[in-house]
């Protein structure tokens, strides 16, 4: 186990190096000159040169890459170009809002989709199954934007069940007042694809021999489904949840944008619109790290869920 962990962590280094190199080169090659962006429209040539010198942009490329690496390791990204807020502070203050919205979305989505998918898989081929499959195809073809626009209009503006948008400093107020509508809309949208996917997982398992054996020895259908099929189907389901996990940190950026939730997703969108490179670069690198760590944790989790899995 320890040897496995060490090897996996060791293997992350080249990938991580690649991510850093990719982000560095992308912004270096296509991103325009940071000094002129920072200097603004009225900067003199001397001022731009001074900024360039300060950022080390006049040094050779490998020295600049060294500076970039040092920023990553020391978590010192300097300040946002647009607001002069330190990037580290930006992360720390935007993350709670994102988590307040995203954790309920992920939990609700998984826990609602599992019973629905199991039920649909159980009655496969029936009219209910086909009706639900057609409904999910239709639901998937409508843009996410439409659900949010119409949902916000109907539930918040017309019916007044929720506030149209807003956010407060108290986590509890956020959770019970401002988060429910975004969470409900996001879950409603993601339920269709998740149900379809989980249905195929359950269908795979229901076709196996052990299910027939269980039926043959007289187990009731609920016991077969809950004790045998569900446990086996949990492996691909867990993978799917794990794949979605890093997305939590990016946030449902559209949801945050629509409901003016001051989270990370909205921040990165603002950064893109303002060409605020330090924020985008820091984001890309750290999210990549989180993704890799989560993937490793998932692999270890497999071992716990399924003793047959051998980590090598």
């Amino acid at each position: 186990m320890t040897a496995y962990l060490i090897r996996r962590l060791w293997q992350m280094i080249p990938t991580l190096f690649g991510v850093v190199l990719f982000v560095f080169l992308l912004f270096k090659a296509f991103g325009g000159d940071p000094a002129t962006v920072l200097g603004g429209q009225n900067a003199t040539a001397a001022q731009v040169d001074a900024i360039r010198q300060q950022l080390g942009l006049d040094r050779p490329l490998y020295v600049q890459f060294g500076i970039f690496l040092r920023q990553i390791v020391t978590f010192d990204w300097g300040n946002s170009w647009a607001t002069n807020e330190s990037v580290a502070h930006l992360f720390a203050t935007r993350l709670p809002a994102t988590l307040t919205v995203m954790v309920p979305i992920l939990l609700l989505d998984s826990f609602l989709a599992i019973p629905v998918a199991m039920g649909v898989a159980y009655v496969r081929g029936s009219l209910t199954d086909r009706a639900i499959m057609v409904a999910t195809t239709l639901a998937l073809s409508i843009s996410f934007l439409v659900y949010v626009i119409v949902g916000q209009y109907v539930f918040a503006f017309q019916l007044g069940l929720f506030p149209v948008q807003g956010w407060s400093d108290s986590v509890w107020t956020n959770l019970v007042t401002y988060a429910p509508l975004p969470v409900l809309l996001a879950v409603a949208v993601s339920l269709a694809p998740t149900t379809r996917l989980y249905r195929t997982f359950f269908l795979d398992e229901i076709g196996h021999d052990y299910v027939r054996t269980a039926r043959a020895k007289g187990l009731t259908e609920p016991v077969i489904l809950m004790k045998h099929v569900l446990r086996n189907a949990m492996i691909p389901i867990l993978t799917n949840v794990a794949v979605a996990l890093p997305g939590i940190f990016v946030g449902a950026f559209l949801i945050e944008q629509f409901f003016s939730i001051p989270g990370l997703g909205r921040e990165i969108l603002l950064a893109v619109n303002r060409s605020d490179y330090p924020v985008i670069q820091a984001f890309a690198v750290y999210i990549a790290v989180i993704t890799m760590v989560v993937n490793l944790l998932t692999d270890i989790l497999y071992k716990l869920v399924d003793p047959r899995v051998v980590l090598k």
Partner: protein
Amino acid sequence: MSTVLASPQLTPSMTRGKGVWAAAATRFKTDHVGMASLVIVALFLLLVIASGAGLIAADWQVERGVPDAPPSFVGPAAPTEGVAIAAPTGPNVDISAIDPLAPRYKEWAEAAKKYQTTETIKATTLPFGGDRLGRDVLSKAIKGAQVSILVGVSAAVLATIIGTFLGAIAGFFGGKVGDILEWVYNVFTAIPGILLIFAFAAVFGRGIGSVVLILGLAGWTGIYRLVRAEFIKHANRDYVRSAEAIGASNTARMFRHILPNISHVVLVQLSIHVVGFIKSEVILSYLGLGVGVDQVSWGTMLSEAQSELILGHWWQLAAATIFMAVFVTAFSLMTDALRDALDPKLRGLE
């Protein structure tokens, strides 16, 4: 998705030396859902071509109706009761003696006569309503279809070319080259897709070309993975070894021998990506990271529709949604049928 099964008597015709594509076409024709969606997709493509050639919807920017003109089947908007400004009751004081501009009024009135103005009568209703400026929503939806579909298809083609090319090299050669490409793949998949798209959007800017480039560069990894696996599988098959024995070059074996044998995988992937990229384009355009401001796509229509909906003007939202939903549903069903026809082993898995 498809529920129609191919009739079993097709198999003998396949053994009579019928090509794999002809056999797939025969299977596809028996799929009624697939055929119906193919017709709808073809109609949309005709629409795109006609609109691209300027035959229809070329005048989408002309303000033909009154602002926010309702659809014809709803009828013109009820006239709002404007509060008229009360006429002043006091005596009309002649201020021409102290008005410094007074001597030139006559001169200006004559100069103004030289210009002719025509009073255009704007329609009070349009077939499917008008937007904030009185532009016909139907023309906008057709023009938007042209932009959105074009972007989706081009980006999918770009992603497929990148993915297939790199996947072919990685799978065929393996070794050092394969390791390097695997490393590139790992790097691209380590960054979540949406973040990758944003990073590209930050440096490439806006416009149709940029969106195609952004989506294509961010979306090739899935195809790469599949094509690589297929190439690994095929690289040591007998027919490839035979080709090598008669002196076929690496390039010839990769693209003349193996590629045609896995082209059904590539085609299905291409078609799956079209739908995904159209959805992405709509979201990017909505966020202002997509097509330029003087263009229209389904995404920009939805972004305008958000503020119109609060005023009760639902038609732009409805037009963009219906157009997109019909196209995306038809395209997805067509893709399902295509996959079933090209790879009968997969039938009924989803």
